[in-house]
């Protein structure tokens, strides 16, 4: 039985852990501080279309599948390419034409089930979700509580935007005004209402927690009153409808309010992000061995990593490893740091972007002229071969038992290509599969 050690606790790490476990490997996850998971708006992006302009008609959205293919053509250094080649090779074993898209769709489904975090959406069709600012964002998958809010299906609807007066971060009237400007003619009516005029909240978290508890019944009553007054066909709620009991609240809403309700995407601090963070934590704790602490250094024998050292508070303990998946994220979670030079602080892997390698470089050289352009600086990372194993300038493997997954990989800039969650899941799953020692000739589909 192979033994896979995964460093990191974000979505790429979870995907790798799930896949390696399914392959029968023994899985250990080294879990340091949380990374970017809790910042999630709730949208699970697979691939976006940077060529779309905000003034383009909002009803015609290319599907994530189309965007993936365009993304790989436009950016041959994107990690999707490695996955597409590796997975596409196996098309004969049961995956269809767009092997990567299908692989992603299935992987997302599996993760959602494993986390007991129910999501809706698909790679075949975009989901057009409402933001708290009243704009629309195309994505692939969203949590179940967002499910009724796909604007591609809302034409002719009478929409009621609900806000909470005491929650400073979102304003329903403002969002309604912005949304009216965008889609005004296509929806029958857009109205807004603010509930709980007398209650103030320090943070969205406080409100969400009260929604789990004693504010719930009051909320049903107030919302039912508002719905009776405005007569909407759909109700948009801020993404603060409970932390633990969101699913129960939404099924109760169905009974007490009677019209489909959905949450909008979240700004930070994000409650949907917190829900995802908790679901992932729960999964790791219950399904695999978790070592708490930060991996600080390692020992290698030639090109084989033998041991890593995990520091928890002031204690540092060695951990023997056989196969290692590095999924520590990029700048925010410290997977890569940039001070005087770029550094991958654990294995000191060579870093770069678009096939070039560098450590000390003037940051200005990695910035484009235009502010909103795709700056190579944010795509700097670990470069790998097709099997997601880090390579150096001479195209040699740096370590024979090391795989990399997630945003630490070079070539992806989620803010531009909108592929953050997709990259994490695709590369995480692939790395987990390859690290668990199953050869590429395995069937991908069971």
């Amino acid at each position, binding site marked *: 039985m192979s033994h896979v050690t995964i460093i990191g606790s974000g979505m790429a790490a979870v995907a790798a852990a799930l896949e390696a476990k399914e392959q029968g490997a023994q899985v250990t996850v080294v879990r340091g501080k949380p990374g970017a998971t809790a910042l999630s708006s709730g949208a699970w992006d697979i691939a976006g279309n940077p060529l779309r302009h905000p003034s383009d008609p909002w009803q015609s959205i290319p599907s994530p599948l189309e965007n993936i293919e365009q993304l790989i053509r436009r950016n041959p250094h994107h990690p999707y390419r490695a996955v597409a080649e590796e997975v596409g090779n196996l098309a004969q074993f049961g995956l269809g034409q767009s092997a990567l898209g299908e692989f992603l769709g299935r992987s997302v489904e599996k993760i959602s089930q494993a986390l007991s975090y129910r999501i809706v959406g698909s790679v075949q069709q975009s989901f057009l979700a409402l933001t708290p600012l009243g704009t629309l964002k195309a994505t692939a998958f969203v949590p179940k509580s967002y499910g009724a809010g796909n604007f591609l299906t809302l034409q002719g609807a009478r929409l009621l935007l609900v806000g909470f007066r005491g929650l400073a971060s979102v304003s329903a009237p403002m969002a309604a005004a912005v949304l009216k400007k965008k889609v005004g003619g296509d929806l029958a009516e857009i109205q807004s209402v603010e509930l709980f005029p007398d209650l103030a909240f320090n943070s969205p978290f406080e409100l969400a927690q009260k929604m789990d508890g004693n504010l719930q019944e009051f909320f049903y009553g107030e919302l039912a009153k508002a719905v009776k007054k405005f007569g909407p066909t759909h109700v948009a709620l801020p993404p603060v409808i409970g932390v633990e009991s969101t699913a129960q609240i939404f099924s109760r809403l169905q009974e007490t309010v009677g019209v489909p309700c959905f949450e909008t995407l979240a700004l*930070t601090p994000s409650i949907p992000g917190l829900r995802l963070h908790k679901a992932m934590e729960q999964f790791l704790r219950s399904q695999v061995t978790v070592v708490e602490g930060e991996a600080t250094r390692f020992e290698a024998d030639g090109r084989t990593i033998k041991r890593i050292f995990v520091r928890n508070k002031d204690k540092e303990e060695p951990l023997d490893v056989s196969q290692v998946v590095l999924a520590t994220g990029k700048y925010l979670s410290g997977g890569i740091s940039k001070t005087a030079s770029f550094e991958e602080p654990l294995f000191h892997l060579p870093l770069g972007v678009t096939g070039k390698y560098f450590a000390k470089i003037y940051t200005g050289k990695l910035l484009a002229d235009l502010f909103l352009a795709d700056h190579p600086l944010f795509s700097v990372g670990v470069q790998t071969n097709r099997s997601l194993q880090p390579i150096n300038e001479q195209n040699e493997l740096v370590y024979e038992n090391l795989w990399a997954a997630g945003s630490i990989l070079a070539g992806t800039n989620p803010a531009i290509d909108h592929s953050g969650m997709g990259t994490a899941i695709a590369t995480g799953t692939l790395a987990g599969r390859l690290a668990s020692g199953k050869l590429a000739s395995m069937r991908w589909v069971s």
Partner: protein
Amino acid sequence: MSAKYLYAQVFLGYHLLLRLLRRIFQKKSPGLKNFVAYYRDNKITKFSRHEKELMSQWTRCISCGLCDSICASVSAYPVGPSFLQRLIRSVPDFVGNAALDLDHCQSCGACESVCPTNVPIVQAVQFIQNKENEVFAAT
């Protein structure tokens, strides 16, 4: 070198010298003291160099809200450390008008243990408490 340039150099040099000499021999201008006294009612206060360094560390906050959630799970009276988010927008404003009850903070450090960017949250709480005492005691 043109005469204009030379004149400018000499002029600036003379005034630099004058200013430095004044600083040695003249008494300190009461401007800042007057200002602080005048705006005491508005709870505007001074910040030391050390405090300013501390403030710069709070800007690492990415407002993920994890500190709030852990605070609620370990404490019967959660403080909601994400107040930092507002703190960093305008420290003077916040210190004067903080509506939060920070007395329940036990400085257990649970919030710091989950912070992705290592913000010194406990120090921030202590800073606010000290500043509040200072500002409110004076009024």
